[in-house]
């Protein structure tokens, strides 16, 4: 458990999935290409220690968001909403990292160190670049496409099948949860209401979760029987559209790799 904005994650998946139905150059690319390219950018962002490089990468990603017709304000909002997850640790760096003290808070006696500040900025920049890449990926590639691409890239059969089934029922269960919560609301139940005993509220939440667990279990059984009656066996495989890579795909991945190599070269150039 953790402090969360997770009620937002379902909403953001919903909107992101709507964004994937738009049309643009990035939308038309093969899922595998987008998955590999953006993961490469994330891995590079985590590896590099140069803030300037991260700024260039971020500008490149923002440009990609811009040309792919997805809502800029929605993308920025998602990045901002997701930042607290890791940003918290980045913000603490100036106070906890030993180094040359550049500022002392008069009252609290907290030292800000230069090394800590720089490291905090580095962590924050890495986080922003990674989140921008992931927001872009999920706005131009549907979940089904991501799972299908991972299967094509060698994910084990059972795992890919479970994932593709899982995402089919994701929204259904979210709606089920909303239904339970609406029913509770109509009876004036509010989990944030401090006038009722905490223990009692916790018990209601537990019942909701038990209900969700049972509903998903029973739904799983029903789905199994309906799959069985349509010929499912333990040798079944998920259907995968065999899509050939087109020239646009090669251009994009070629460009991404040369972009990353260029960034790496820039970081060795003493000019900057």
């Amino acid at each position, binding site marked *: 458990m953790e402090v969360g904005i997770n009620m937002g994650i379902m909403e953001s998946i919903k909107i992101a999935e709507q964004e994937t139905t738009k049309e643009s150059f990035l939308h038309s690319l093969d899922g595998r290409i987008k998955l590999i390219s953006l993961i490469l950018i994330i891995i590079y962002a*985590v590896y590099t220690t140069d803030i300037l490089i991260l700024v260039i990468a971020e500008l490149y990603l923002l440009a990609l968001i811009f040309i792919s017709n997805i809502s800029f304000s929605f993308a920025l909002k998602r990045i901002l909403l997701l930042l607290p997850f890791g940003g918290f640790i980045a913000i603490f760096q100036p106070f906890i990292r030993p180094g040359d003290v550049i500022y002392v808070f008069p009252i609290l006696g907290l030292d800000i160190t230069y090394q800590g500040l720089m490291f905090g900025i580095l962590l924050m920049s890495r986080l922003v670049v990674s989140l921008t890449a992931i927001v872009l990926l999920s706005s131009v590639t549907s979940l089904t496409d991501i799972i299908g691409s991972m299967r094509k890239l060698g994910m084990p059969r059972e795992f890919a099948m479970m994932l593709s089934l899982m995402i089919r029922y994701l929204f259904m269960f979210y709606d089920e949860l909303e239904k339970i919560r609406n029913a509770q609301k109509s009876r004036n139940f509010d989990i944030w209401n401090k006038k009722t005993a905490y223990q009692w509220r916790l018990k209601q939440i537990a019942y909701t979760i038990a209900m969700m667990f049972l509903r998903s279990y029973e739904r799983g059984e029903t789905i199994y029987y309906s799959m069985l009656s349509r010929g499912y066996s333990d040798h079944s495989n998920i259907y995968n559209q065999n899509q050939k890579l087109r020239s646009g795909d090669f251009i994009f991945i070629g460009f991404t790799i040369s972009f990353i190599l260029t960034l790496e070269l820039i970081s060795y150039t003493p000019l900057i």
Partner: protein
Amino acid sequence: MHIGDGLLSWTWPIYYIITIIALYFALKWARENLDEKHIPLLAVMAAGIFAIQAMNIPIPWGTSGHMMGAALVAIVFGSPWAAVIVLSMVLLVQSFFGDGGITALGANIFNMGIIAGFTGYGLFEALKKPIGRFPAIFVAAWASIFVAALAVAIELAIAGTFPLDLGLFYMGLYHAVIGLAEGAITVVAILAIQNVRPDLLPWGKGGS
């Protein structure tokens, strides 16, 4: 408890290797011990756990948190590998929406799937005789959160992004409180399942 990208510095591939090995054994377990019925079942459970995790729950101190569910899945399915599989799916999908990083996914599955699942299941099995089934569930679910949180603190310390003493203290203290809610909810949820579908529980097989 989801670690973001970049916070693990260079250490992130280590957790990917551990997680991939664990997933290999988890899938092997699934092939050997589950009939083909359980593939749709685990998949739909993952969707259910995803929705459960999306529900914000009030925690004393005026903050909020959400269920993790690793202990719940491990205890109901009677195996920690079930928790590893279900939590891996949940965390993988979450990572594509920025909840936990892509490079940190290995570590997140390691903490919330493997460590939490095995802690939860192991403690439940060890304690169910001496202290009774439901107290054991409470302790197991609490510990699954607490131990996973300590693991996060240790991993951040190894990566050099957060000092060990501060990390252990704050992560431990915060999740020791949050774990109480996870423990209580897991107990009541399993009690409710026992009342409605006792046949689903490992100790209720053939009992309904």
